[in-house]
């Protein structure tokens, strides 16, 4: 193994060369001949009937080419934006999804929903044109509040009580019985605040249609271009699949918000054929706030049943999840299969029952945002556990320890469907306590108090299900797609390698990590491996990047293709050695045979593959290029222990994160530098949720936090340095022993922060985000 670039080395990133020099190619950086510009006309009302739309004045604006309304798309056979996961309610009925035309036709249902768009020669003309579009609306009563949505005005004609589904998981009777015999019950009413993802690159699309070949090319900011293509072709029916190429070039962050198929790229690619010219759109940040799918937004009642000695006996959770106005692409799965299934956490709680009611409101659609369901689940479990420890007068670490699933219990079947393959939760906890200098805490607390500050400490032990996902299992549960991943390894004549992956990197560094994997296994230089992603015209159908799946599923697919490359290489080498392939070994980039003292380097076999002189072509095809599809047999289960210490100024309510320790078990790690970076970013988003971020709609459905002036993004001076370390129990069911690391930080950190704040203040609960105002008011009220 190469110490600088092999598996386990913190190789510096290949992709950085273009990013640090301004040579990245993001969608908005791409310009094509004859391109026009598009601006969307968005609803100013949270809920209204569209009585008429006047486009005549817009058409009169100089430079405006066309103004399109939703009716024109519908008339052209353009279908609804679908939700790809059908969740079944308790009563056996499938979820109820309202119609979701890409461009609104009869009704608008959230502020910012597009109801027309203007295509013009210049962006300025398109903006002027959009200003000139007017509509006659009949304004209707808006439904905004998550908790009361089911008893509010009915938004969609076909959706009674504004309820998409009422889902359950677990054994209700067993759970009720556990509560009946409990010595102690801890209850919490929890609000998981709405977040707005805010990848720094706004969404964008550049669609063009080539009439001569009848082909469509869409450049867009997607985390999963193949899914985008399949949805646009098969469901929305913009173009036949074969005639549609989707390219996601460099993408500036996603965090879930760029998984989904949105109105804007649909409109742009469709309309490019109508006007016969390419059309470009890039969201303004204010549009991103209004129209990117938001995250979280749960209202939950959670109860934990315990024995007097702190043994966790049962967990009961009832959640209302806000879906926004429509069911976005994967929205339905987030508060169900990515949430209820995680309620066992790291504990052997024997009885768990979870109910989730998904409701519609007149707000932007809510879908997966970094962690997607798992941060919400961790928040429920870890706030409950910490609160229970305080109520029982126990050390919260000790209460966790006595309830951890022990290392000899794996594989461990939870009462909520998942089977954890491996883990060592006590090991992560021990390492985290050591890193956090747990023994020095009382002295630090005393020092804070001497300085007039309040100090608190909180823990969070999360688990997540990553590596989405075993296809047949998720298809059974209502998913509309399999969740395998594809890979192709093309060896060049000289022995260099091009890898095509269905995973998509939008910051994760796959061009580096995957190259490390390939160079390590083939024993070839890191620099001779190129990784290609994000283009449906170049790589096989794949599912893209979200749910921390890329290394566990995409990496495993590459590994599987490498197996095939090595197997074929052995066959070729066997002919050269004049032996059989089972006599050939491959290690450190050399094919060798015991009967020969002249091993054949990988590059020599690559050359022989393409210059097929040494082997019989009726037995062996020429060339050295292999594909693989990898379908995982289980989820992966990263887990970790986080410790947060806060120092609060009681005069201002300001919270300072004095210490943040994260110890994660991601199994085997290919590039520790990249993995630590992923953890840092996740923690920043988790601290953002806990202290700063909140997507707020006013009572009439206007987004009150629609810009960086109102929505508090974590900035450099809001955050501390993080102390990050790892433990490892390799995944048992994928060839690399990897688990995935993208979401852990965002999953584990909010509960750690809020446990620390409630500890400092000596109160049961504080709502996120714990802004200085909220904290100060809590101190004044003393509850």
């Amino acid at each position: 193994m190469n110490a600088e670039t092999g598996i386990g080395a913190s190789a510096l990133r290949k992709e950085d060369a273009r990013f640090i020099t301004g040579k990245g190619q993001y969608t908005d950086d791409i310009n094509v001949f004859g391109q026009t510009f598009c601006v969307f006309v968005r609803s100013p009302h949270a809920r209204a009937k569209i009585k008429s739309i006047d486009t005549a004045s817009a058409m009169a604006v100089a430079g405006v080419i066309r103004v399109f309304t939703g009716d024109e798309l519908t008339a052209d056979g353009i279908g609804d934006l679908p939700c790809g996961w059908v969740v079944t309610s308790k009563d056996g009925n499938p979820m109820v999804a309202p119609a979701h035309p890409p461009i609104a036709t009869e009704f608008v249902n959230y502020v910012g929903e597009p109801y027309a768009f203007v295509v013009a020669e210049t962006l300025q003309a398109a903006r002027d044109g959009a200003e000139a579009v007017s509509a006659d609306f009949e304004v209707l009563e808006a439904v905004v509040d998550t908790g009361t949505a089911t008893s509010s005005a009915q938004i969609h004609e076909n959706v009674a009580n504004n309820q998409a589904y009422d889902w359950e998981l677990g054994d209700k009777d067993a759970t009720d019985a556990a509560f009946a015999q409990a010595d102690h019950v801890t209850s919490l009413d929890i609000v998981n605040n709405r977040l707005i993802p805010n990848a720094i690159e706004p969404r964008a699309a550049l669609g063009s249609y080539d009439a001569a070949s009848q082909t469509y090319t869409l450049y867009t900011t997607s985390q999963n271009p193949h899914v985008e293509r399949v949805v646009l072709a098969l469901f929305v029916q913009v173009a036949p699949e074969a005639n549609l190429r989707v390219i996601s070039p460099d993408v500036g962050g996603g965090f879930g918000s760029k998984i989904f198929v949105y109105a804007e790229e649909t409109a742009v690619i469709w309309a490019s054929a109508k006007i016969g010219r390419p059309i470009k759109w890039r969201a303004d940040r204010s549009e991103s706030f209004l129209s990117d799918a938001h995250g979280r937004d749960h209202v939950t009642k959670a109860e934990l049943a315990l024995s007097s000695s702190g043994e966790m006996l049962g967990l009961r959770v009832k959640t209302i999840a806000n879906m926004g106005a429509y069911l976005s692409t994967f929205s339905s799965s987030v508060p169900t299969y990515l949430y209820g299934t995680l309620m066992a956490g790291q504990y052997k709680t024997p009885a768990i029952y979870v109910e989730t009611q998904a409701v519609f409101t007149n707000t932007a659609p809510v879908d997966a945002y970094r962690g997607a369901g798992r941060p919400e689940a961790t928040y429920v479990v870890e706030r409950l556990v910490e609160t229970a420890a305080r109520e029982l007068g126990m050390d919260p670490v000790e209460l966790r320890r006595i309830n951890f699933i022990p290392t000899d219990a794996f594989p461990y079947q939870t009462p909520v469907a998942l089977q954890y393959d491996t883990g060592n939760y006590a090991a992560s906890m021990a390492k985290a306590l050591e890193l956090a200098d747990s023994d020095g805490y009382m002295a630090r607390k005393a020092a804070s108090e001497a300085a007039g500050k309040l100090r608190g400490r909180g823990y969070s032990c999360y688990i997540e299900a990553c590596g989405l996902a075993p296809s047949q299992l998720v298809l059974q549960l209502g998913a509309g797609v399999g969740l395998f991943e594809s890979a192709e390894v093309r060896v060049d004549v000289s022995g260099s390698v091009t890898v095509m992956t269905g995973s998509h990197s939008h910051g994760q560094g796959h061009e580096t990590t995957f190259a490390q994997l390939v160079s390590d296994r083939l024993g070839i230089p890191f620099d001779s491996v190129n990784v290609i992603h994000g283009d449906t015209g170049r790589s096989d159908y794949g599912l893209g990047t979200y749910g921390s799946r890329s290394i566990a599923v995409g990496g495993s697919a590459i590994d599987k293709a490498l197996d095939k490359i090595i197997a074929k290489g052995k066959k070729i080498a066997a002919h050269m050695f004049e032996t059989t392939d089972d006599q050939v070994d491959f290690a450190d980039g050399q094919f060798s045979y015991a009967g020969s003292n002249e091993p054949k380097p990988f590059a020599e076999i690559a050359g022989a593959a393409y210059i097929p002189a040494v082997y019989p072509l009726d037995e062996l095809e020429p060339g050295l290029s292999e594909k693989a599809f990898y379908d995982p047999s289980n989820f992966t289960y990263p887990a970790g222990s986080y410790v947060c210490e806060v120092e609060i100024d009681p005069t201002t309510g300001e919270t300072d994160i004095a210490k943040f320790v994260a110890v994660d078990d991601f199994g085997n790690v290919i590039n520790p530098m990249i993995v630590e970076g992923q953890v840092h970013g996740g923690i920043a988003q988790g601290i953002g949720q806990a202290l700063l971020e909140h997507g707020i709609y006013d009572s009439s459905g206007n987004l009150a936090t629609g810009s960086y002036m109102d929505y508090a993004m974590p900035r450099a001076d809001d955050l501390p340095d993080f102390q990050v370390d790892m433990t490892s129990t390799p995944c048992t069911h994928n060839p690399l022993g990897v688990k995935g690391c993208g979401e852990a930080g965002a999953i584990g950190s909010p509960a750690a922060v809020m446990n620390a704040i409630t500890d400092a203040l000596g109160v049961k609960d504080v709502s996120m985000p714990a802004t200085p105002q909220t904290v100060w008011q809590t101190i004044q009220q003393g509850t």
Partner: protein
Amino acid sequence: MKINITVNGAEQAVDVADNALLSDVLRDALGLTGTHIGCDTSQCGACTVHLDGRSVKSCTILAGQADGGEVTTIEGIANGEELHPMQVAFRANHALQCGFCTPGMIMSAIDLVASSDEPLNAEQVREGLEGNICRCTGYHNIVKAVLDAQANM
């Protein structure tokens, strides 16, 4: 209107609309797409460039205001093949992930270090970069990179 600006060392005469922003002119007229647009309220800092040696958010300046000025963008800070120490430090410290905020972050960081008489500490770097938003890194490695780079600037 016609403006004369020196961009990355080359004098340019550019026709610009009266209301054109410097960021738009850099990207659209001059093809310097390393300067990114991440917001519409001058908050995110992705469009940061240097105007006459100081960092500015190029979305906050009319192109006309830069008339006669000297603009440096991310494309202009390396010395030929030799990267600027801040570029080197960002890569060496894994201070970027998606890369979108990176050009603005690097341009701000260069000015932050260059305009300080004393070596900066971590807290000063965090305060100094408050006008640039990164959603990927949690700033941890960005702070490390800037502290690292200042030794070589």
